[in-house]
């Protein structure tokens, strides 16, 4: 299932618009994976732009609520960094994933490019629901953040 429409719907609430234009110039940003897994407490498709320690810890609480003991919240220096993330939402089996593959800075905004995949057909799989997610830390950016699904 493509994530973009839902991601855009979510972003409309907070960012006001879902841009579709191409950036005038690119600057690829490095980022560090904070967690990339298939069992998250976020069971609905969702995107994240978290710029404070409080919001990151609150998000982590929900993300990790299915595990005992709750793993510690990965450290992020919000003086210079922020957290962006994508959640695929609940899926019926393993084999689904979602991954942030690139961040690039345009003149107007920050683009977060992600890719989601589905399991191969005809393999027998475990009958456990999954909820893939990917959180990364990125350089702090106060402007608009746009999520784009990679083709």
């Amino acid at each position, binding site marked *: 299932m493509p994530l973009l429409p839902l991601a855009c719907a979510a972003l409309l609430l907070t960012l006001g618009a879902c841009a579709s234009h191409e950036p005038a110039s690119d600057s690829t940003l490095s980022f560090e994976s904070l*967690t*990339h*897994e*298939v*069992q998250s*407490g976020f*069971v*609905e498709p969702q995107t994240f732009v978290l710029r404070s320690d409080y919001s990151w810890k609150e998000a982590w609480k929900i993300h990790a*609520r*299915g*595990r*005992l*003991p709750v*793993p510690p919240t990965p450290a992020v220096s919000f003086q210079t960094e922020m957290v962006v993330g994508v959640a695929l939402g*609940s899926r*019926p*089996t*393993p*084999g689904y*994933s979602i*991954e942030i593959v690139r961040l690039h800075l345009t003149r107007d905004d920050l683009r977060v490019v992600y890719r989601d995949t589905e*399991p*191969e057909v*005809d*393999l*027998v*799989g*475990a*009958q*456990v*629901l*999954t*909820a*893939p997610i990917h959180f990364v830390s990125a350089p702090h950016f106060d402007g608009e953040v746009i999520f784009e699904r990679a083709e």
Partner: protein
Amino acid sequence: MIAPSALPRSLRSLSLLPLVLAPALCLAFSAGCSSGGGDSNNGGGASMSGRVTVPAQGGTVLEAEPNDSVDQTFSLGSLGSGQSLAVVGSVGGTDPLDGFSVRASERVLVSFQLEFDAAEDLDLLVYDPVSMQFVQFFVSATQPESGSFYANGSFDLVVLPFMASSSSYTLTLDVSAVAQVLESEPNDGCNAANGTYDGEFVGEFGAGDSLVFQGSADAATDPVDRFLVAFPAALQLDLSLAMPGGADFDLFVRDQTGGIFDAGGACNPPPLVDSFESMSNPETGSINVPGMSLYEVEVFAFVGSGAYTLTLGGAAPPPGSGFAGLAATQASPAPLASERAALGELRYGRPLHETWPGEVVVATNSSLAASGFEGALAQRGCRELARAGADGARLLAFELDENLDAVERARATLARTRSLASHPAVAYAEPNFVWRPMGGTLPNDPFYNLQWHYPQIQLPAAWGLTTGSNDVIVGVIDTGEIAHPDLVARQIAGYDLITSPQIAGDGDGQDPDPTDVGDGNGLQPSSFHGAHVAGTVGADTDNQLGVSGVTWATRLMHLRALGIGGGSTFDIANAVLYGARLANSTGNLPAEAADILNMSLGGGGSSQMCQNAINNAVAAGTTVFAAAGNENSSSPSFPAAYNNVISVSAVDYNANRAPYSNFHPTVDVAAPGGNTGADVNGDSYADGVLSTLADDSSSPTVFNFGFYQGTSMACPHAAGVAALMLAVDPGLTPAEIEQMLESTANDLGAPGQDNIYGAGLINAFQAVQLAMGGGGGMPVLGLSVSSLVGNGAGTQSVAVSNLGGGMLSVTALNVSTATGSWLSAQAVPAGTSTSTDTGWITVTTDPTGLADGLYQGSVEVVSNGGSRTLAVTLSVGDEPTVVDVDIFVLVVDAVSFETLAQRIVNPTRVLDYSISGLPAGNYLLVAGSDDDNDGFICGDQDVYCSLYPTLDQPQVISVSEGQTLTGLDLTMQTGFGGQSAGSDSSGSRVFSLLD
């Protein structure tokens, strides 16, 4: 500042101590304590406050079932001089008797009054746990029954309905110290005509004791006075009888250990141990007495009459004297068969629960450990087998006569247990049960309370029947095994059936190593799905670690068939064959075939090879379960849709279809699969199925626990219940297991079989009961709570549930109060339930006319599925009762049960508490007294206990950062929870005090 840990624990009960220590009793995790006192908010954290209400000491205790046998008594704790106690209960009908165990801390005279309904007749008997027989009989036809008896050490009180009598009752006990025993007629010994023993039981007598008897005898009119003395340990008994001048009184000592009565109810002529028949005054003598014996001492007036003084003295046996052991346990059936059979109390002396012969679990009070206890063990010929447990519990063993039958061995074991329990250094002593009694079968795993999915299928009740067998093997066809500490003890050799090295991820194809190397494929952590499924079937349980499994003892055989991206039908078919010990592609066979195969997997198309493998496995006697699939689809999912497979769909916390669960005609039963998108039960965790997991996102791998959802999670619940069924009947065939699971399931959805739930939600209790040859769908009464606390006028509801099958009918509500008529109850029919015709009991309290204080009563709920009693406490007025005991208020982590904070309230007329500096979290609020000074509250010997808001229905209190919670009031209960002296203490939650 005095550090609390620097003070002896025994000093902590001093009333001044809380004032001294208030600044020191900060939170355990707090970096520093406020110097302003312990009750102020330290600023940074959240706070809780409220008031503790305590019933007056020596107040009213409500009896609670089960208390029908010597190994299932209701403990009244210790009674000492000056104490009074009222016990409120009901007996008769389906409740044959009420047994109470008591420990007299000194030699006392207990005066009692037993009040009951005028038209009925209840009796009171005193039971000697040393010789395991009744020794005092108060069996008049009058109302109330009253009298007095002597006691020292352990004894039991048994309230017994005469013939078909049935009544509520109030038993009042008043205890006073005695310096000597006063002879009281009639005391001529065994009375076959009445079925009583007319004599005076004086309780236990040990080395160092001395006891004076005052009486009178007359050779012509009253020649015989008889006394019964219990000897838990061997000793040298010295006797001295002073008599009037000119008289000739003699002494006879007889052994009544083997039973006062014979099998026919006639008096057993007791063997004469010794007699002292000289002309001397005083008449003196000395005998050696073996431990665990009951002796009758007879004063016989041979010539003359007048007052006499009999003095007994006891000394420890000299080393090497050869009589330091125990009396030979009597194989006589007399204690079981003879004791006033007409009155029907036979069952009391027969232990209901199997114990390991001769084994006793004992923990001592740390402060008293040195007070002669080791000598007491030596005197009883007792040896230590093992020592373990946080409370220093020891496993001890007595030698028992090999010729005893199983019942007599159990009786002898119980007698030795009780004799140790009366020692002042003992915090508790209990038999080493083989099967735990039903009331004590909750596991001690710290995360069990988050496994809502087990009570949903009546597993706690099923565990009262069996906790599983190590003879049963469950094969888990899945992602393989991990070295999780909550699994390793259960795992046996498995196999890796994955042929593709790419899917296997371990560098090769099929091999004997079923280790799950992870299926992350770039994502971490891996799912470790097989570990989660296996943990549900049979995680190591009751090991004070992590989670519980459906079975506590089943062996787990991991058959690895799922790897990176999943698996193939070829590999899975071969895993089925391998598990069933049939020819397969590996060329190898397991040492033993799996009795059950669990396949929490699906997808792909229908495979003839897989169907054939399943057919062959089932024909070989292996029962096969599979998950119905997670696509929220009506399409068949394989292997669940194959013939000969028990297909399991999933329900959520409310027993509704889980939103993902497939629905198809091949669905056979439903089981909990969870819904991690919800937290309906409000425990702050997702309502998924909690089991064993691992995190391989860093090295080394961390073994943890997690909530998953899916029909994958439902399937092992059903497989685990099948393992419990095989534990009680290893001869069940796959077809019989399926039939029993289906016939005992609680029907959900459309009546009868349907595509969503199949036959319904599995019922572990019913299925195991049926497998044992019992049950057959009979109803079993369940109540949502067993106690209520009310404040003034009000009405509260208690949910009625049918733990069994068929239709449950509540036939009567028997309300009982010690004072006034402030309590009433009404049964409310259920609206649409198909398994019960009574949905609720509403309990109403009306304090009109009552003075301020605390009142206790009970509601006995009688049904065609048995009876249960609700204890009701009513608080009237605002003033808390002042008591002379420290009450500890603890904040306890709701998951780990670790005590985080502690306050003490005490007799200052202010029982308010306030605890501050709490971090955000989920907590339980507990309060209680530490009467045995063992560092724990709510233990067997502790008088007061309460959880917020009620003892039987505690709530997790979620506290956010800096939040202030007020009004968290606690009402203490005494005799809480119907603690059974014979039950496993580990089954009852106790809470640790902070040092």
